[in-house]
């Protein structure tokens, strides 16, 4: 299963990718919108894990751009924002939304569920 992780916090996203690799996933990561779109154009991913708030574009806008390049790709959002309204809006756009910081098992469970859908 091939994953793309996108978050502007490099230390967070690179370590998360490494931990997912240790669990048998193939996980690429990007810290900018441009890098994320370049990767999606070059590779076919099953699931994209996106930060909701990025410096130059929202995660939802990025999701819409990725969907045009890779129809059928599944999305999981991660966020440090916790308002219920924001959370509900984001959840409607993806398989689920996970609040930072989280246990990696929670993300792995959502990735596996998303892949089965």
């Amino acid at each position, binding site marked *: 299963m091939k994953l793309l992780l996108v978050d*502007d*916090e490099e*230390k*967070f996203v690179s*370590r*998360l990718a*490494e*931990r997912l690799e*240790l669990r048998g996933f193939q996980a690429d990561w990007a810290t900018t919108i441009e890098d994320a779109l370049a990767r999606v154009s070059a590779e076919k991913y099953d699931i994209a894990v996106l930060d909701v*708030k*990025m*410096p*130059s574009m929202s995660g939802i806008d990025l999701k819409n751009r990725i969907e045009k390049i890779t129809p059928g790709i599944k999305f999981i959002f991660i966020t*440090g*924002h*916790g*308002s219920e309204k924001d959370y509900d809006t984001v959840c409607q756009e993806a398989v689920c939304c996970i*609040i*930072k*910081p*989280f246990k*990696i098992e929670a993300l792995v469970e959502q990735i596996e569920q998303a892949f089965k859908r």
Partner: protein
Amino acid sequence: MEKEIGKICAEGFTFFGKTNRLISHELKNILAIISETMGLLDELAELSENGMKLTPARLRSMSGSLIEEVERANAVIRCMNTFAHSVDEFIREVDLNEAVALTIQLIKLNPIGKAVKIEFLENGSHMIYTSPFFLENLLYHAFYFALSAAAAQKHIRVSLFADSNNAGVEISGIAPGGFKSFPTPPAELLVKTLGAEILPDSSSGKFYVVLPQKIPEGPAEALLAE
């Protein structure tokens, strides 16, 4: 006057809430980095028990980044604490230099403050008698606008100026024609409350936030009246 007081209070609460949201988001990001780093360390330690090589350099790099994140969190909390003390004395002597430095730290927590560089060219203290909280509120609006309207170089520069009657903040690096949307209605309300002026200089991509040495009588002072 009552209507004005109501409006300025609502604007102040909005700013306070927004700032708390930015701070909590930043702290959650820091906690997420610490959590992933600790989780990875734990997993690498387990793998090393089963024969995988774990080098001292790798360990040092990870412990180093944990220290960096703790320092980052400490800086954010210091900023939060200074901001929270802005309402201790509602109107008082304020060092404009400190107010600008604090507000720049706050705007850097906003996603737009991470996409565009904002640089403060500090040149010493400038004391004015005003409302620190509403000053920070106005400066936040000004910096947010500047970052949103930045020229192609994506670099906003901030400096201070002062004379016997006024002190102020010069903000440069705005794109040509970028001044149409500022001041916004909330910024206009704060300008009026503080007795400030916004002076655009569109030919050089700059604008000035000019502040009186002493806040005029008005809604901010009326908030304190018994």
